[in-house]
């Protein structure tokens, strides 16, 4: 049907793209993670497991990884708690304003990540908007220190940034639910609350899982929010990777951590894919 030349012309660019920007870097990362750095700060291209041994032995890496996962988990939960009701309202009660409201959800995504992170810095800082206000109304005498440079600030900022990523797939899943199922449920005597838990929520699970996966994976790998707002207690695993590739000049160890992260993320995607399939009915 299509000529050979045409087929090559349409398939080659994406193939080359994936090769150059995905497969090759991953292969390099894989190789680096089995190499090491000499005392003279040069990379030794000899295969060994020393990076992985170091990761297993030094608790700082594990602790940071667990903290990162805990931060990502909280971001996920808060994003879902904020995003679900909004998506639900939009889908079921949006009415004529549906499209406008949908655009309002998307607009924050056009604003640079950095701007939004810095905005929180101005809000949460010791001389920030929030502290000034609290002192002005005499709710506190001194600036609250825990607001900025803490895991709290990181969770807050990441929740703000990634909530739209949970709203969109949940909204799509809710839009997908035939409205006569809701009518059928009411018809069979189910109250709106029963209808929500027995029909609407189960049928929106694929959207919830997709949204949760976005929020968790994106937060887990984030390094800017902890860098700008995290302080020493809010360091995340990606900050370690960044410093290993930069100041510390230990690419092999950084590659080993990255590979570990990659394994975690890919297995998560695999599991969420399974759950989404299990709960899709169309």
């Amino acid at each position, binding site marked *: 049907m299509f000529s050979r030349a045409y087929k090559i012309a349409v398939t080659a660019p994406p193939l080359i793209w994936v090769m150059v920007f995905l497969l090759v870097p991953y292969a390099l990362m894989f190789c680096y993670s089995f190499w090491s750095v000499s005392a003279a700060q040069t990379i030794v291209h000899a295969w060994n497991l020393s990076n992985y041994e170091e990761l297993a032995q030094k608790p700082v890496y594990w602790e940071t990884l667990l903290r990162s996962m805990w931060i990502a988990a909280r971001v996920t939960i808060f994003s879902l708690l904020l995003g679900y009701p909004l998506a639900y309202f939009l889908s079921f009660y949006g009415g004529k304003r549906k499209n406008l409201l949908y655009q309002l959800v998307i607009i924050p995504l056009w604003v640079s990540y950095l701007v939004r992170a810095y905005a929180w810095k101005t809000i949460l800082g010791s001389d920030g908007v929030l502290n000034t206000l609290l002192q002005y109304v005499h709710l506190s005498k001194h600036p609250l220190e825990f607001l900025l440079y803490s895991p709290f600030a990181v969770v807050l900022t990441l929740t703000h940034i990634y909530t739209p990523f949970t709203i969109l797939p949940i909204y799509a899943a809710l839009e997908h639910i*035939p409205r*006569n*199922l809701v*009518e*059928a*449920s*009411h*018809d*069979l*005597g*189910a*109250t709106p609350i*029963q209808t929500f838990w*027995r*029909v609407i929520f*189960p*049928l929106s699970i694929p959207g919830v899982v997709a949204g949760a996966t976005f929020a968790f994976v994106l937060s887990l790998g984030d390094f800017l929010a902890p860098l700008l707002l995290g302080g020493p207690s809010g360091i995340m695993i990606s900050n370690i990777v960044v410093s290993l590739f930069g100041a510390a000049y230990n690419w092999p160890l950084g590659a080993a951590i990255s590979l570990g992260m990659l394994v975690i993320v890919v297995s998560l995607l695999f599991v969420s894919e399974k759950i989404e399939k299990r*709960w899709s*009915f*169309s």
Partner: protein
Amino acid sequence: MTSPLSADPAGGSGTAWPALLSIRRVAKTFGRNAVLRGISLDIAEGEFLTILGESGSGKTTLLRIIAGFESASSGEVWMGAKRLDQQPPYRRRVNTVFQSYALFPHLTVEENVAYGLRVAKRPEQEVGERVAEALEKVRMTAHAKAKPAKISGGQQQRVALARALVNRPRLLLLDEPLSALDANLRRQMQVELKSLQREVGIAFVFVTHDQEEAMVMSDRIALLRSGELEQVAPPREIYSRPATAYVAQFIGHTNLLKGEVAGGVARCGALSWNVGLSDGPALFSLRPEQIRIGSGAASADAVRVRGTVLQQSFQGATELVRVQCADGLVLTVRRTGGNALPREVELEFSGDDAIRVEESPEQN
């Protein structure tokens, strides 16, 4: 015949008819569009009532108002001594079989049927028994564990029926439930549905645009046109004594004769026959099967007219013959014999079979 509604046993405020559901002057407008214009209709206990109408006649809207998915712009719906139209759908003892069945895709057949009982928090043992019984009744026991996507349209239809009936509603609403089925299955389901209704003794309100379906199943037919009831009557009566020209044409074939009554005699072109009506213009409906093709042996008071055969259309058991008579009058005649017709035929009918009907103004 004074009003198109005169055949409605619920007409007026009569209390003799034991009404289960009473629809009183219900109107519905969407924006500037009047979908229902003051419908009054009573539905009796255990009755099979069909709301028949073309698409856009408002029949589905009326059903949705009874179910509670739409609210009426004005008017009331009563079930016994309880006002229904102010109750949310989940507090009405009314269940619906939806046009597209609306089975819950994430639940098995069994769980779908159990839904109403579970949300009503019936004991699990009772739920199990009643669900098994309901599935038995619609012959779906073998598919109890299947998801709706795995069963055929006809089977989904049965599950939807079981899911509604298991709650023992006082009234079951059916929104064109057979329209998605092919012709054979459809005829089979019509018979099944009717016998099921007799068996369970629950009142059915069945919405359809198919007049044959309405005739086969109903105890009474309510014919809706542009948001108004044209006639409410049992199938035989609505066929043999249509109240309006629209009813006569919508249900079966008919010949409409526009005539003039003077001194107890109706005249339509060259035709004339005796009537017991007052003077003035009148419209008559004459069914094709009431006209015979000249045997010559007809009774003396038969109306006779000669004409030329225009067209014969074979319909299986019968044949429709269009005959051109004098004065531009074309009559359609139904005959059973399949033998050849001469070009010129003599038609005869009894004046009693020409039913006076109300004119139906063009509407839109």
